[in-house]
């Protein structure tokens, strides 16, 4: 009765395994690779070499990339600093601002569902005498603007709130946040890793002072990121965290990763051209996936505000089915789970817990991250496969059976272990 031999056929044009985890990283666009290749071999110069054509050629490529990145986010080229990725960008932004503005104050505001690159950086600063407020989020994953207003005091120097969440895909109200920060004279940093190239971002209109981004989330190479640092109204200063040759206006020393930078630039140029159409395409795929799952399965819970949402993200809890067992059944599809069992810590996702979801619902969550190279045929296959496995696992689930019998699971005295 409960034997599983999959009835789902692989449709024509679909190659297994299917990659649907684009929030973790994205495959590189072949156009990006093509742009990068010469900078590994023939155009290998150091962008800081001022005395020969190899250096000039590399420098020219870097400046072109700077402009491409700036254009995508409404900045100017001079405001772009290259880093090794978003973790470094976040560290540089938060630590660099904390150090630079220490005399003005020691209070930083962030929120609980930030990436660890922000949260752990803030925790370290707490050890050095900074005070950090971690704003809660509402059940839909968004912060309450009133909470932010109340949290700002005369010692506040920095607010760091992400643009889009990596797990649940919600878009924080950055424009409003930035406006409040500017009214209060506080610097606004946003970790926009998941948002850049996916939804429109304009640092002027959105009142952003400092912004982190990385190449590998937008079809560029790993190991290359950038930090936007506003130069006027207000001019933001950042204390360098890596000392050396004084590259990048003294904010980030180290020989530039020219091929990576060229790739990041190209990835941004493609996004500038294609983002609007791509967002509509991904939203279509996402809605199709969601609709198929919702029409075939009961007790599913969509996590995060779906109105303010990344086009390619869908985070669903298949309640009464444990996430890792679901992943095991769809092992030809690469997605992520918020389940504890998928991590070494045995703790379920802190992001889902912050929404007020019970651990059991958090254990049941799957994150689908659709990207540029996913197709409708893939979505149809994944939906069919997930539906089949969820049904199989629910036949095995004592919780599902008890709920169908009308038993209130919260009233049971569980022998927790």
């Amino acid at each position: 009765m409960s034997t599983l031999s999959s009835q789902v056929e692989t449709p024509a044009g679909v190659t297994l395994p299917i990659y649907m985890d684009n929030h973790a990283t994205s495959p590189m666009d072949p156009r990006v690779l093509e742009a990068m290749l010469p900078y590994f071999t023939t155009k290998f110069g150091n962008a800081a070499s001022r005395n020969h054509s190899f250096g000039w050629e590399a420098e020219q490529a870097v400046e072109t990339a700077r402009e491409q990145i700036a254009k995508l986010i409404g900045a100017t080229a001079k405001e772009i600093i290259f880093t090794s990725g978003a973790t470094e960008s976040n560290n540089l932004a938060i630590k660099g601002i904390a150090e630079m503005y220490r005399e003005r104050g020691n209070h930083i505001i962030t929120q609980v569902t930030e990436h660890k690159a922000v949260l752990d950086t803030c925790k370290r600063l707490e050890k050095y005498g900074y005070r950090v407020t971690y704003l809660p989020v509402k059940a839909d994953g968004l912060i309450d603007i009133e909470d932010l207003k109340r949290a700002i005091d005369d010692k506040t120097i920095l607010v760091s709130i992400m643009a889009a969440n990596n797990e649940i895909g919600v878009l924080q109200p950055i424009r409003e946040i930035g406006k409040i920060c500017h009214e209060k004279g506080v610097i606004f940093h946003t970790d926009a890793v998941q948002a850049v190239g996916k939804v429109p971002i304009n640092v002027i209109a959105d009142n952003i002072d400092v912004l982190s981004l990385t190449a590998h989330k937008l079809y560029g190479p790993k190991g290359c990121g950038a930090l936007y640092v506003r130069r006027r109204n207000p001019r933001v200063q950042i204390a360098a965290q890596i000392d050396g040759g004084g590259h990048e206006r003294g904010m980030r020393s180290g020989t530039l990763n020219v091929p990576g930078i060229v790739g990041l630039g190209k990835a941004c140029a493609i996004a500038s051209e294609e983002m609007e159409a791509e967002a509509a395409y991904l939203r279509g795929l996402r809605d199709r996936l969601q609709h198929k799952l919702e029409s075939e399965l009961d007790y599913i819970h969509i996590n995060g505000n779906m109105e303010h949402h990344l086009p390619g993200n869908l985070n669903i809890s298949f309640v009464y089915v444990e996430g890792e067992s679901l992943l095991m059944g769809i092992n030809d599809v690469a997605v992520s789970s918020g389940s504890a069992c998928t991590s070494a810590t045995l703790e379920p996702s802190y992001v889902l817990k912050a929404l007020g979801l019970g651990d059991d619902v958090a254990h049941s969550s799957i994150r689908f991250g659709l990207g540029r190279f996913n197709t409708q045929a893939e979505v149809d296959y994944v939906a069919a496969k997930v539906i089949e496995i969820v049904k199989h696992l629910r036949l095995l689930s004592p919780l599902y059976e008890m709920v169908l019998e009308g038993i209130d699971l919260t009233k049971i005295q569980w022998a927790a272990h």
Partner: protein
Amino acid sequence: MAYSDKVIDHYNNPRNVGQLDKASTEVGTGLVGAPECGDVMRLQIRVNPETQVIEEAKFKTFGCGSAIASSSLATEWIKGKTVSDALEIKNTDIVKELSLPPVKIHCSVLAEDAIRAAIGDWKKKNGVAETADATAAAH
């Protein structure tokens, strides 16, 4: 994480899935784990009152593949055993049979607990004295 072939086999073809009549005096039910921990196992046995042999065993498990496999295997092993022989099954036997990695040992512990809880419930119903080792220890 790579699963052993045996875990995959139990996952795809779980043995003895289902439910026995909880109200029957011949049936013992063990419900262990908690939804918050990501593992809940329900293991049931039907015991022949004369021979004390477990004639039927059924399970349902909410949990990872290793938890499903551990409980499926447990039902297979206890079927046909007397109650006292079934109590001899140790979680380490399950770990060995399924080649569970260290991070999944708790799944085997839970399966052993489920066996003990089901037998404990049956003994309670039938007024059989609990032996010292037969208590379903919370851990």
